[in-house]
């Protein structure tokens, strides 16, 4: 009999799946909401248990799904890295659903709310499965679950432009999945395995013998590009601003902060466990990732500067931050990988915070969205203003906040590689560009509104919107603490990431 803590990853995934199924038949949206929050909390606690067990014991275990050992049956593999990702994913999803609840219950029709929470539960299940899985075909199936659930999260707010945004998101996502599946088919044809551990042995043997080299390279390229399309790597990011900018607040937070990261987590696992880092460097995929990452950092920020709609600005900023993560992956060293993983955690805390606060500021300002009409809204809800400021400062990279630490690690990771100059220049440029659109936003919300704007807002804001929102305050406070913790207490996190990446193989 295994130690009981080893069953926790499987419990989390199954809990999320069954809660999703049950949510579809619950009578009221509130009941489904509470069930989903409970599942997120349970998953958070169980994943902390797994983290303590694996980091304390410095081990990573394989959990066979059934009584057939790998490679005959399916398996999960859990180590400190996977557990840390699972902790952050469940926690942030719970806080997003808590903080965006008021907007959610207003935007989504009451008869559809239980189904919305089904989608949220399935998104959580697929995120956990993508982190823990050690089989590429299971990864594909859960990628498809994540695609459908994420599209449903976007279209839950029923409006015409949202439908078009969902269509575009669905089509781009399907292209990505199709390419990933094609790469998987090629990989299976030359190695014959689907479980990652035997697959890595077969790939190493192929590299050593030099057989089927073209097919191997093309398979790797297809899988990387497929996952990149789905996680908004530049230049495949065109679907992101419409989808994330138009959805309801909780959906934007979940999509920007978490769903994109699930695909990147699978890409990291593939790069480390199946194809080793040396092979990706040798084949040139690292250089492509680096190039697209650098371009994304600059172009994402440039597009964000043109936007006046606050949520679309945040969506373009996500493109830039995903560019950072791909740049770290493209450096091809373990240090770069560690910096990318840390930035995944930082972005997963910051971006939902920014979206929640932007949503709340918009609600208390008569649902205006443009930055000029949000002038002075920080004084109407101080917590939202403070949260937005903290998130913006972190994205710019001010010390004490998480974003600064991740930029520091990116810069350090690039120091001894051949691309040091390019990376440092682009980090500097991107920091400047980030400041150029975040600082006006922060100044605008703390500025003084002209009198006619104040009048207009006072007339058109409903009293229930203006009332104090305890759930939002709680969620925003928790996320602010998370950002500050990542910015100051980053050493333990880096130690866990270190151990986790070593045990990932």
């Amino acid at each position, binding site marked *: 009999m295994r130690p009981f803590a080893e069953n926790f990853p499987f419990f989390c995934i199954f809990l999320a799946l069954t809660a999703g199924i049950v949510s579809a038949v619950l009578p009221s949206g509130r009941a489904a909401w509470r069930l989903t929050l409970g599942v997120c909390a349970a998953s958070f606690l169980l994943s902390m248990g797994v983290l303590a067990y694996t980091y304390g014991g410095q081990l990573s275990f394989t959990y066979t799904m059934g009584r057939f050992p790998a490679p005959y049956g399916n398996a999960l593999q859990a180590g400190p890295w996977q557990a840390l990702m699972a902790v952050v994913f469940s926690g942030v999803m719970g806080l997003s659903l808590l903080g965006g609840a008021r907007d959610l219950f207003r935007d989504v029709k009451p008869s559809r709310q239980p189904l919305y929470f089904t989608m949220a539960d399935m998104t959580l299940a697929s995120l956990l499965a993508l982190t823990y899985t050690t089989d590429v075909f*299971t990864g594909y199936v859960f990628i498809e679950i994540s695609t459908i659930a994420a599209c449903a999260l976007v279209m839950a707010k029923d409006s015409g432009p949202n439908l078009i945004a969902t269509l575009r998101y669905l089509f781009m996502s399907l292209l990505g999945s199709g390419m990933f599946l094609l790469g998987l088919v090629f990989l299976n044809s030359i190695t014959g395995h689907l479980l990652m551990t035997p697959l890595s042995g077969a790939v190493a043997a192929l590299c050593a013998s030099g057989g089927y080299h073209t097919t191997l390279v093309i398979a790797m390229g297809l899988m990387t590009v497929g996952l990149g399309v789905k996680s908004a790597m530049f230049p495949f990011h065109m679907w992101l601003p419409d989808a994330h900018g138009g959805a309801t607040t909780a959906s934007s937070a979940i999509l920007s902060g978490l769903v994109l990261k699930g695909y990147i987590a699978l890409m990291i696992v593939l790069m480390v466990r199946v194809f080793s880092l040396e092979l990706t460097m040798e084949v040139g995929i690292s250089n492509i990732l680096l190039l697209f990452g650098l371009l994304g950092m600059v172009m994402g920020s440039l597009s964000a500067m043109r936007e006046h709609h606050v949520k679309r600005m945040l969506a373009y900023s996500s493109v830039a931050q995903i560019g950072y993560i791909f740049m770290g992956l493209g450096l091809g060293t373990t240090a770069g990988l560690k910096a990318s993983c840390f930035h995944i955690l930082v972005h997963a805390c910051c971006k939902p915070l920014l979206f929640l606060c932007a949503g709340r500021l918009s609600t208390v300002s008569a649902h205006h969205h443009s930055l000029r009409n949000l002038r002075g809204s920080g004084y109407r809800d101080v917590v939202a203003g403070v949260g937005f400021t903290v998130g913006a400062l972190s994205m710019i990279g001010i010390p004490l906040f998480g974003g600064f630490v991740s930029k520091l690690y990116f810069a350090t990771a690039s120091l001894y590689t051949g691309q040091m100059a390019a990376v440092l220049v682009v980090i500097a440029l991107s920091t400047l560009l980030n400041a150029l659109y975040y600082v*006006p936003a922060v100044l605008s919300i703390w500025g003084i509104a002209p009198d006619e704007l104040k009048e207009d807002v006072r007339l058109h804001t409903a009293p229930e919107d203006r009332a104090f929102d305890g759930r939002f305050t709680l969620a925003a406070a928790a996320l602010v603490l998370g950002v500050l913790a990542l910015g100051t207490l980053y050493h333990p996190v880096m130690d866990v990431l270190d151990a986790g990446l070593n045990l990932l193989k």
Partner: protein
Amino acid sequence: MNKTEKNWKSQFVSWVNGEREPKDRTLFVMERRHIAPPRPTPEEQDRRERHRLYRFLHGYPLAALIICAVLVCVLLTAVAAMPDFGDPDNPTNNEVAEHYLEYSYEETGAANVVTGMILSYRGFDTLGESCVLFLAVSCVTLLLRREPGCDEEDPDELRRRRQEDELRRRNPDVILTQAAKLLIPCIFLFAVYVLLHGEESPGGGFSGGTILGCGLILCSSAYGPENVRRFFNSRIFSAVRTFGLLLYAGLYGFYIFMGANGLEYGASFTMAIDLAVGLVVACTVYGFFALFSRGEI
């Protein structure tokens, strides 16, 4: 001195308020833009938009053709380097496939190796796939289900539907009803046969469920949805779908937990899981038909 100060300060304030293009203050120079005239007239804007769309839509197919041609060439080189078709020494015919072929009957009780593989060895993928089916029906419900008493429906659509139902009730289609009388029992019988024989012959939950769903569709087309609703209405639909998937998840979860911890358990669950999958698929197929054609189950 005063005027320049005021100018600078007012410019800064207007930049913060977003009234000026922030690009004017960046380090590198974007395209030189004059102070933008107050919003161009609607006709001018329309013409510009149309021109942009025209350019996009006409230059784009050529670029798409080039990209697809390049991709096909790249994939063809991959295929040329792939192992040969049908060769028994391929890397795919390795010890995993041999293990499945040799031990599937004793370890899973299924003579059909593919059924044994998807329900026992790699059952987690099948659970994920059933969840995809469940999610698809939920999404289609989210999108297409008509709420009674909602103002989404326009009155013409409603009237047309009511006229069609009335027509069908008064003059039922003779060919369809007579053929359905013969075919429906055979279809259901065949569906149950395929469902139950998934382990010995080609078949199983997915094929059997699809055939069952098609039988229900024929029922609904021939005799009208009200007659189907007598034994299969919306509540039974949700209940069967949810119960089927929960049963599958519960049984498979139990199986995983027992297997991973090395505990023994008595019976084999493959038949129950097959039936559950069949029910879910049948509900999915019929649900798609009903929601697409009428907007309600």
